[in-house]
């Protein structure tokens, strides 16, 4: 049972990897960007667990900036994904402009909240 499930898992990961390898490069870049943001967020969570929550607003803004970046990047990824039928009439340029606007607002707020 255990072996079969681990074999299944291996199969699964192989299938996942091959399926993922087929995604276009620009989506992969976005994925990398998301991974970077999530990783930074995790580091901060570990850090706050170590040193305590004194400058809580800084922690919040730090983590939320990462989470926000990740979420917005995911949104962008959804919109520029050619396979996604829902957004066929949404031009990638428009999607990217929205993304930039959203990020500007996000970072403005973060700057306000950081200090």
């Amino acid at each position, binding site marked *: 049972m255990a072996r079969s499930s681990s074999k299944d898992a291996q199969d699964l990961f192989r299938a996942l990897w091959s399926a993922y390898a087929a995604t276009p*490069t*620009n989506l992969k*870049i*976005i994925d990398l*960007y998301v991974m*970077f*943001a999530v990783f*930074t*967020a995790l*580091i*901060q969570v570990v*850090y706050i667990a170590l*040193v305590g929550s*004194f*400058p809580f607003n*800084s*922690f919040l*803004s*730090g*983590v939320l*900036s*990462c989470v926000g*970046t990740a979420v917005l*990047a995911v949104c962008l990824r959804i919109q520029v994904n050619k396979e996604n039928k829902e957004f066929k009439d949404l031009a*990638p340029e428009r999607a*990217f402009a929205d993304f*930039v606007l959203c*990020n500007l607002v996000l*970072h403005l707020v*973060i*700057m306000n909240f*950081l*200090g």
Partner: protein
Amino acid sequence: MSKLIFIFLFLAFIPLLCTSFTPERPSDRRVLVLLDDFAVKSSHSLFFNSLKSRGFDLHFHLADDPKIALQRYGQYLYDALILFSPTVERFGGSVDAAAILDFVDSGHDLIVAADTNASDLIREIATECGVDFDEDPAAMVVDHSGYAASATEGDHTLIASDDFIKSDVILGSKKIEAPILFQGIGHSLNPTNRLVLKALSASPSAFSANPKSKLTSPPSLTGSSISLVSVIQARNNARILVSGSLSMFSNRFFRSGVQKAGSPTKHEKSGNEQFFTELSKWVFHERGHLKALQLQHHKVGESSEPSIYRINDDLEFSVEIFEWSGTSWEPYVADDVQVQFYMMSPYVLKTLSTNGKGRYFTSFKVPDVYGVFQFKVEYEKLGYTSLSLSKQIPVRPFRHNEYERFIPAAYPYYGAAFSMMAGFFVFTAVHLYNK
């Protein structure tokens, strides 16, 4: 004729009167003396002369003189009143008990001397001031062990008492050696009344009863709870002296020698003169009158007074306190003046240090609590006028830009936020280039 003289005197004293109204000179100047008969004026001349020699302007009137008046056009004509009229049932003119009490309530001083058979009027005035004379009109204070040995009468109503109030402010710094001769009615005080003080109390063996009749029931007043002379300082700092004996003030008592029964020392002169001279100085505000001014506070390192403090500010506080010496304001020196920084309860309580020139100062940190605070100086010391000063000052929390910034512990978060921003730019570039 006397009226004319009075008016003339009044006019002559106008410059003096004008100055005497200012709070800068709290000592009384014009004193109205109400007498039962003018014989008292001569029989008590020593006391009156001591007042006159200190600059008081005494106006003698019979208590039932229909022309006497305490005030005219809403202005009081006198600064103090001496009632040496224990038997008067009605005052003349517009004066009555209520008028006298109003006189006190507007900040003027009063000396009341009662005696055996004191009238209801005098008793009522005394009661209003917190002094209860023995109900029995014929009662006197009798002391079978503390009587004055020089007395010839055998009923021991002439008492030699040396149980003074322990206050240099009230009785002067010079110790009164000789006992005080007293013959008259005793009174009691409500122990919960904080305003009234026993200046002279009877000895523990004293009691108050009618010496002429046999004692049938236990006397209502006994022992040292009997007060012979009391002083009262009202809340507005008006001072009142109530004595159970008019003869205490008389030349006879002032001059007579005294030997307390059972005591070997015989004093040439009773303590009465010194006692009443000192006491009258106190009553007429020649001693123990304080004033506070220049309540100032400011932040450390600044000199102007702010309209609001911030929590945890360091501030300096100072106040000036002076005492009236009878002729001028002298710096008051004490080590027990305290300031409270008060909001419902004192958050800071500090004893002020003084520079010996009347200035008291301290510095402290504003507590970590915001609200509307008060600087409070409440100084109530036995014999002194009470000082109660307060100054309201709000204390605010930090402004939004007064909090700490760039906390080292938060650097990773700053780093994360800025790396996200940098990442955003890099990503934008890459994303656009890739397309």
